[in-house]
């Protein structure tokens, strides 16, 4: 088996140590929920803060494209799984200056604010539907900022190699009605980043596929810098590229406020 990376927690170390050599008995000890919890840590909670310039390419089956360019800032508040996001849009050109603020809480609906520069209006935006599309892309809000660990029940289906990586295959089934009825994830045993995720719809047919296309190490944090979400039925996909990724840049919590929505912090948003 592969060597264990320093970023892994003690718990996981133990699990993996047990699993070294013979896979099957050890696998019985790891639960699906453990794995997904680790995945969320690696995928969405790496370091205290995070910034990236994000380019999105929305491509329909005809090859028509829509592009989005945005800067994303993230800060973990330190209270459980709470996080704050600041998103500033550079493109399309006519929406430049539109900014979006999300306060994510552990046990209640997010708070979201939006600044519309053309009419200089900051408005609260309801966060009821975390599964709706994020800015018209194939990603949902949830795909970007994470889904409650408790919302699904998990089952470790298998362990297999995928894209040349040893993976856990975990199935998640939502506990209450949701946009998907089943999600199967291939999670890299080494980095705990998702390699591939398949979402099944209400007809139990494959609806969306997530793939992590490129992973880079940024300051000790394995980061998915290129990813694609494919809507199988609409034959539509969205490609996302992270550039200028930075961890622990020392973002100030004050940035994540209504005031800065209208006046983007130039230090972080060029």
């Amino acid at each position, binding site marked *: 088996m592969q060597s264990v990376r320093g970023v892994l927690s003690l718990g996981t170390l133990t699990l993996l140590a047990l699993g070294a050599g013979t896979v099957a008995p050890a696998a019985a000890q790891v639960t699906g929920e453990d794995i997904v919890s680790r995945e969320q840590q690696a995928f969405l909670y790496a370091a205290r803060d995070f910034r990236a310039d994000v380019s999105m390419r*929305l491509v*329909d*089956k*005809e090859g*028509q*494209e*829509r592009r989005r360019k945005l800067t994303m800032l993230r800060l973990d508040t330190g209270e459980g799984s709470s996080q704050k996001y600041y998103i500033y*849009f550079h493109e*399309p050109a*006519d*929406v430049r200056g*539109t900014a*979006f603020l999300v306060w994510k809480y552990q046990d209640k609906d997010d708070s979201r604010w*939006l600044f*519309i*520069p*053309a*009419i200089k*209006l900051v*408005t*609260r*935006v*309801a966060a*009821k*539907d975390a599964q*709706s*599309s*994020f*800015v*018209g*892309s*194939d990603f949902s809000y949830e795909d970007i900022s994470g889904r409650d660990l408790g919302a699904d029940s998990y089952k470790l289906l298998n362990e297999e190699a995928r894209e040349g990586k040893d993976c856990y295959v975990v199935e998640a089934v939502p506990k209450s009605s949701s946009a998907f009825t089943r999600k199967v994830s291939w999670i890299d045993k080494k980095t705990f980043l998702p390699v591939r995720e398949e979402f099944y*719809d*209400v*007809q139990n*047919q494959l*609806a969306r596929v997530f793939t992590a296309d490129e992973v880079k190490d940024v300051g000790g944090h394995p980061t998915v810098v290129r990813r694609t979400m494919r809507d199988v*039925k*609409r034959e*539509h996909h969205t490609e996302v590229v992270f550039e200028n990724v930075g961890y622990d840049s020392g973002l100030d919590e004050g940035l994540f406020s209504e005031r800065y929505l209208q006046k983007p912090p130039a230090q972080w948003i060029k």
Partner: protein
Amino acid sequence: MSKAPRFSMVEFSVNHPRWVVLLTVLLSAAALTQFPKAKTDTNPKHMLPETSDVRVWNSEVEKTFDLYEDMIVLGVANDGGVLNRETLERIHRITGEILRIEGVAARDVSSLTTIDNVTMEGGTLKVGPLMPEVPATDRELSDLRRALFGNPLFLNRVISEDGNTTAIYVPLERGVNGKAVADRIRGIVRTENGPERFYVAGDPVARDTFGSEMFKLMAIFAPIAGLLMFLARYLMFRDLFLSIALMMDAMVAIIWSMGLLIGFGFPIHIMSSMAPVFLMAIATDSIHIFNEFYFRFRETGDKRAAILETMKAVGRPVRYTALATMAGFAVLLFMHIEPVRVFGGLVAFGTLALRILSFSFIPAMFTFVKDETIQRTSQREDVRSSRTARLLTRAALLGARRPRRSVFVGLALLALAVVGMTRIHVNNNTVEWFKGKSEVRTSDRVLNAALGGTSLGYVVAIADQDDQIKTPEALRTIEGLQRRLEALPVVGKTTSVVDYVKRINYVLHDENPAYDVIPESEETVGQYLFLFGMSAKPSDLNNVVDYPFRRANIFVQLKTWDADAMRTVKHEVDEFKARTGARLTFKPAGTAYFNLVWNDEVLWDMIRGFVIALVVVFVILAVNFRSLKWAIVGYAPLVFTILVIYGLIGLSGKDFDMPISVLSTLSLGMAVDFAIHFISRFRRRLSEIRPDGTVPDESTVTDALLWTAERPGKGVFRNAVLFASAFSVMLFAPLTPYVTVGAFIVSMMILSAVMTIIYLPALIVLLRGWLFKGGA
């Protein structure tokens, strides 16, 4: 061409009847093996090739705007209003079930529970499903009511103005059978026991229900028609064996041609589904062989000689009528519309098969009949004693004795027909292919009365550069066009990107009516649309604007499936463009537009075919009679029949639709049959009694005419009766195109038979001098 080979076919068949019958049976068995592979195709879209402009354009529009080709509408009506918890509970449950149906594009089903709404509540902007959960309190219920009636995007779409009707729009994935999904939906609503009424409507339902009904019709009506004809024949000849032989003639030809069609992999289209009944009717022409056979047998008393002599006497007219019929159908092979070509080829082949059988299988079958049976039957064929014969003679006398009066009455009728023809209204309506009380029609009627319209067309606005659609100027143009279109009585509702932009403007300004307008700057529009696209279903925006914002799609809901409705829309759009000098260009699209184009294409194709058939049939007549003059006379009953029928269609106010235009061409080849038989036999008779070929006097002509009316005329009469009885079955079909075909053919046969028996004698007597000048 020498006659020897044809003679040998009859002789061969008489000499080796068992071989002929065995071969026929073997060929039929081979054709039958193909039948299980049969598949139907009722999609009107396939009437035009995939490469046709309208299909290329429509599929481009569908792809550009993420649209579905097919949509089923489930209407839910409750006289006490649908906005009560119980009904909403049901809608919630039903929508959930519908989402699970395979083939349903679940992500884009629009129902009260899934449709996106944009509102501002307590300073919070909400973009999301209108009613994700059923309202639990009266307050929530009145909130829902307010949301529904306060949003013009919902009115007449998911809620009727009186609040008594709502609808669930169910888009289908490509290639899914609409009837199968409609049946599943019907199954789901059947389990609900509330006061609500449910209506399933939409183009795919009509189309695919039509397809399955078509199969039923083929399986029920074709055999019934066959049975009726069998019965009519039995009453005529009182001989079971011969009646069966005659029927087998038709059956064999049908099996051969359908087997070949299926074997070649062609789907059975609405038109080719009518082929069996057509072939059965065309097969009745062999009645002339039977008719003559009995006369000859009485004269000679020798079965074998009677067969050979019969074939000699009727061979020529039978060949030429077959040729004329074949030509009428074969002309269709040169049309542009594939199902029409297939149908033409199919029936032309069947006619050929029928004629081969007439010269082989039928003579062979005659040899198996006992002499005594024939004797018994032929006794009844005594010309003088037969009531039919007396009737025919009287009819012919009417024409021959009072030719001027007959012709005058005919001309008066013609004048009336011409008046009627000027009133012909060209239109086609696929939903009206079902009868008024059918479920399909009822659903459509109810939903069209309550909501914006079940028939959907698009008008695509095209700018000359990217992002131009976001300019206030372009949006105002689109809005202006929408208002114009909505003023048309056939248009129920229009929806475009303008409605979304205005809605967002209004909502962001705390529902201040002053902001229920298009904003002043392009930037604002861009940001509004971006905002909308941030949380709504991606398809909401994609349906109305393309990616580069160069094109916008206006949904035009029509209250009728008339092809004409879209013509009105197109006309209004063109006029709008001309009047306002708008920078945008507009192109219609969608199913409603397709129906219009298809309707016109079929029609013009058919009119072209009709003209070609007219020429071809005339040439065949001229060649057959070896005389232009006789060809003109023989042409008269045909032209008269056709004109009178079209006149009647015009006068009755029935739309000149696709089935009728198809029939026009076919009718030529069939209506001319009687004239061919009549004139051929009349001239043959005349040359027998006046071998010198001088101009005959009136009494000679009258005598010969009476003989013709009695003897081959009886064949004509029997032929018409059989023909009419076969097609009269179709009058009881549950689908109107079949009824139309039935009524058309029955009246055509009766008219052309009457014309032949009355007017041919009148014309021949009147034009005697001209016709016989220079020898008969």
